[in-house]
């Protein structure tokens, strides 16, 4: 177990370093950032001044290492647009995105797990078909369109919920539904498959033979075993969601980190973009690492590979 954790940790660190390198290089992909920053009509001296001010005249690898070392201690430099430290911007915007992510994954689990269990107990029944229908719908419906349709129904026609902002809990209802909906199909399928497998196991037959009630068998014996991979999937999904909340945040004007990323891209605010890509990747890397280790801890067979 220790060796597995160590190996997995090494992989996570290597991935993190590679991602940091990629997100740093993004800035240099499109050419000289100093020219872009100086804008049109800048003289050669202006560009040279910007180069030395931001250290663009140093070798690329040195710039990267410098950036990385500072990033590790939480210093991502100053935003080109706001002229304030990027880390403060992220700290101010991240709570909204985190709240949204946690709400959405909770919502998804609360709906998808019971549906998956129901579908597994009655394969090919109406409930099973309904679950399949919802997941097929989810695959084909773009999230931004789904969000707009919800706004149309709940904010414009019925005037029940606000369409934009992040002030009250009401502002989070529609974004949570939109973001959570896309995590549901995978959770539902995995719960269903896991339950189907577990329900055919010998110990379930033993439990039935003992005369336990259906509910006790389902929730005390079967679900406990089937839920393990679902929990780790949920962790991975949460990582995806934080990175994917950019679309949802832009529709509902939730000023979270995704919204900040969108604005920063539109403003060519590279330090902020680099930092956000790195931060979102870190969340994903940490979540998948925890999920893998938890899985290996709960299921020793996983440690072999």
């Amino acid at each position, binding site marked *: 177990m220790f060796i597995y954790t160590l190996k997995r940790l090494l*992989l996570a660190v290597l991935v993190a370093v590679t991602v940091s390198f990629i997100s740093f290089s993004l800035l240099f992909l499109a050419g000289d950032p100093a020219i872009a920053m100086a804008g049109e009509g800048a003289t050669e001296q202006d560009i040279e001044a910007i180069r030395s001010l931001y250290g663009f005249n140093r070798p690329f690898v040195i710039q990267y290492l410098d950036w990385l070392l500072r990033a590790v201690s939480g210093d991502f430099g100053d935003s080109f647009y706001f002229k304030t430290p990027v880390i403060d911007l992220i700290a101010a915007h991240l709570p909204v995105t985190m709240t949204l992510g946690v709400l959405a994954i909770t919502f998804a689990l609360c709906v998808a797990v019971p549906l998956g269990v129901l579908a597994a107990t009655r394969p090919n029944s109406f409930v099973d078909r309904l679950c399949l229908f919802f997941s097929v719908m989810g695959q084909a419906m773009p999230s931004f369109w789904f969000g707009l349709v919800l706004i149309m129904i709940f904010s414009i026609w019925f005037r029940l919920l606000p369409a934009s902002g992040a002030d009250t809990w009401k502002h989070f209802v529609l974004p949570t539904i939109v973001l959570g909906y896309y995590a549901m199909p995978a959770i539902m399928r995995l719960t269903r498959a896991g339950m189907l497998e577990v329900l055919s196991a010998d110990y379930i037959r033993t439990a039935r033979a003992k005369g336990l009630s259906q509910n006790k068998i389902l929730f005390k014996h079967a679900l406990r075993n089937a839920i393990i991979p679902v929990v780790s999937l949920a962790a991975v999904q949460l990582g995806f969601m934080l990175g994917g909340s950019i679309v949802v945040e832009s529709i509902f004007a939730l000023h979270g980190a995704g919204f900040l990323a*969108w604005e920063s891209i539109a403003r060519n605010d590279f330090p902020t973009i680099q930092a956000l890509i790195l931060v979102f990747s870190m969340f994903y890397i940490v979540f998948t690492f925890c999920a893998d280790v938890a899985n290996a801890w709960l299921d020793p067979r996983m440690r072999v590979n």
Partner: protein
Amino acid sequence: MSVSSQTTQTLLKSPSPRDVILLRARGHLGLLFSLSIMGTLLFLAVAAPLLSPHDPYLQDLANRLQSPVFLGGSWEHPLGTDHLGRDYLSRLLYGAQISLLIGFAAALISGLIGTTLGVLAGYFGGRVDLIVTFLINVRLAMPVVLVALALVALFGGSLLVVILVLGLLLWDRFAVVLRSATMQVRSMEYIAAGQILGTRLPRLLAKDVLPNIADSLIVIITLEMAHAIILEAALSFLGLGVQPPVPSWGLMISEGKEMLFFQPWLITIPGIALFVLVLAINMLGDGLRDVSAPEGRN
């Protein structure tokens, strides 16, 4: 009649895999349905210049925001006009070209990258596998929408850039699935036989490995086509994909969202078009998997 000729006759009678697949396809409602929708959409996209009643770029500010015919509009603009008075039906038809082109091209690029990586990792295992697994992990750790937005912003929102960015970002599922599929095929005896007979590696991979993982490949191609189409729409919706005035469906929804209150059909129509296209592609993938799966082929 001798025994051997009897055997030959039974062998001749048993249908070839291709016949079985065709036979199954004929009885698969989902597949037939999705094939006909895809066929129709392809036809509409290709024939857009002939079918569209107006120039999709032609602005007519006097006739802006006309209602579609089912909401009391005129047949002059069957699906109404947008905020610049451009004919919505024409834009929708030309938009199908964009979506299909991006779907095909991005899936082709990501398919080439992902299949190569996945097959190499699955076939060679060991160090190659380690490297490919590492690359997959790196790719998965990067937030797709964010990176795609940043890249499109850097290189400009032309159709080619969007296709390249999506193609270079969406190969992970190809690699993951084909890696494990190749691992299974690799342990088959016909591969060992091929190696013993001294078949050259490229030939072995192309003739023995690839055909046997083709059914997984087809399903992933359709999934990623759908994924690319939805992502392009999302990028264009956020204003950092295909740029105006190109009639991308995502862009049409984005332009329509300002008029959500009085003209909800401006976002419903392209939204339904996207939904139908992606649904048809996904159903096509599911159907192809059902009919081409080796189990139960007889």
